[in-house]
């Protein structure tokens, strides 16, 4: 019936897939090829991956640590705030929401610059991992707040709370018994997004990091600039291995949250 349009859109879809997939495959291949310039005929090897590990294990661990702490902080800051915003929809809430979402509109570089100029001279802070953490929290917090808020807005939170109140539960009890458990799909989706984004964050981190505190993507940038292609690729491979499962989980979780929304 709609032969030509369908064919065309299939072609576009396949081309887009190829565009996204081919270089990732190349990179995976390059990461395990003895000499990429000569091709696969030079043999497959894990030596580049091992070299990446010896060179960058610290960066990888730092990134994981940052992601976990970032998650903890965004949970503590974001979940109660999302609740308060969902319960009090109004101008003030909109303004606050808009404000904490600024890091999505202002380029990371500018934010990092702002942080550096204000806090760069606090030696103990500047050289501590928590300085990078602040950047990551700034950037990921809006995702947590939105994910939780979306779920809270979709379940009839007000009535649920009134139900609990009529059974004798005060505000804190309601938060623990009703709000948090029912926001869980949103919290989960938000958490996975936060962890994924934190592990991949570069724009802010590049400015905020110190030589002792290189995160995984900073290391990646380093290796792209100064290491041989095979090492850079092997490092990218390590990154994929970490991020792809997270991405899959993230999409699964937001699809699940989405189902609650509809």
């Amino acid at each position, binding site marked *: 019936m*709609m032969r030509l349009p369908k064919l065309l859109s*299939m072609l576009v879809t396949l081309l887009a897939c190829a*565009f996204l997939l081919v270089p990732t495959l190349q990179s995976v291949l390059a990461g395990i090829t003895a000499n990429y310039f000569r091709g696969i005929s030079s043999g497959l090897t894990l030596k580049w991956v091992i070299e990446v590990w010896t060179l960058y294990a610290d960066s990888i661990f730092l990134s994981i640590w940052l992601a976990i702490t970032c998650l903890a902080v965004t949970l503590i800051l974001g979940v109660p705030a999302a609740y308060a915003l969902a319960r009090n929809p109004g101008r003030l809430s909109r303004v606050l929401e808009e404000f904490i979402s600024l890091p999505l509109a202002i380029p990371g*570089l500018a934010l990092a610059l702002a942080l550096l100029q*204000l806090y760069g001279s606090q030696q103990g802070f500047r050289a501590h991992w928590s300085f990078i953490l602040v950047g990551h929290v700034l950037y990921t917090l809006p995702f947590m707040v939105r994910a939780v808020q979306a779920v809270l807005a979709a379940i009839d939170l007000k009535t649920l*709370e009134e139900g609990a*109140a009529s059974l004798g539960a005060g*505000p804190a009890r309601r938060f623990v018994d009703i709000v948090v458990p029912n926001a869980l799909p949103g919290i989960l989706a938000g958490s996975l997004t936060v962890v994924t984004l934190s592990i991949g964050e570069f*724009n802010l981190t590049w400015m905020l990091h110190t030589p002792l505190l290189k995160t995984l993507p900073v290391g990646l940038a380093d290796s792209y600039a100064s290491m041989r292609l095979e090492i850079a690729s092997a490092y990218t491979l390590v990154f994929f291995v970490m991020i792809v499962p997270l991405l899959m989980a*993230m999409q699964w979780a937001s699809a699940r949250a989405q189902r609650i929304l509809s």
Partner: protein
Amino acid sequence: MKETPVTARSFGVLCLLPLLIFSLAFLALPLVRLVLSSSEGADGWSVYIRMLQTPRYLAALLQTLLVSGAVTVAALAVSTTAGLFLTRNRFWGRSALLSILTLPLAFPGVVVGFMIILLGGRQGLVNQITPGHVVIAYSTFGLFLGYLYFSIPRVLLTVMAAAEKIDPALEEAARSLGAPAYRVLWDVLLPALRPAMVAAGAIAFATAMGAFGTAFTLATDIDVLPMVIYTEFTLSANFAMASALSIALGVVTWGVLLIARSLSGGTVAAGG
């Protein structure tokens, strides 16, 4: 809640307090500092005038807007086509295609840059399979491809979410009234997708405006604004101009998002 004005309200305040403190300390104050910093150079506040009078900065802003705009349009075209195709056809391997198309969602800009080098660089596939030397990675086109690379998944997800919500009866209604396929697309599907496309386009645009890692890795000669800011910061440590340019970039991007939001009526957020 109204029934217990005091306790419920104070609990709400308690819930917001940590976030308020954090945002004040690490977002509001630094941004104020950034604005002040822009005036602390040799030019004082007239740094903004100088910014506007320096062709290089204006050219960079224009470049950035152009590349971001082009990427937005291209990503919308590609992702809407693919998104409609994937929502309206169920076939074996569909979810694999979907996974591939959303894979780069969390790739940092540097990785995206590297992907473009692998694709269009000297060792890239394009150079290997085309006769003669076709190295696209280090041109404006390479940068465009890089931005497109990370924009496709963002736009795709938003458009697909909207496409799935379109009532199939709308399309059937149009067909029952005699509309051929292209009219269904034009009269029903695209209008229904419009808010999502505006929202997704705004996200793609904002992300492209702020993208730094990709340009940094590709090291192309294209002076996009984030690269200029970076250079200002590192070249003779011109903090004032770097701050001023950052503010300009932030204001322009935020403004575009704001306009998009008022156009689409919904919530438009940048996807990082």
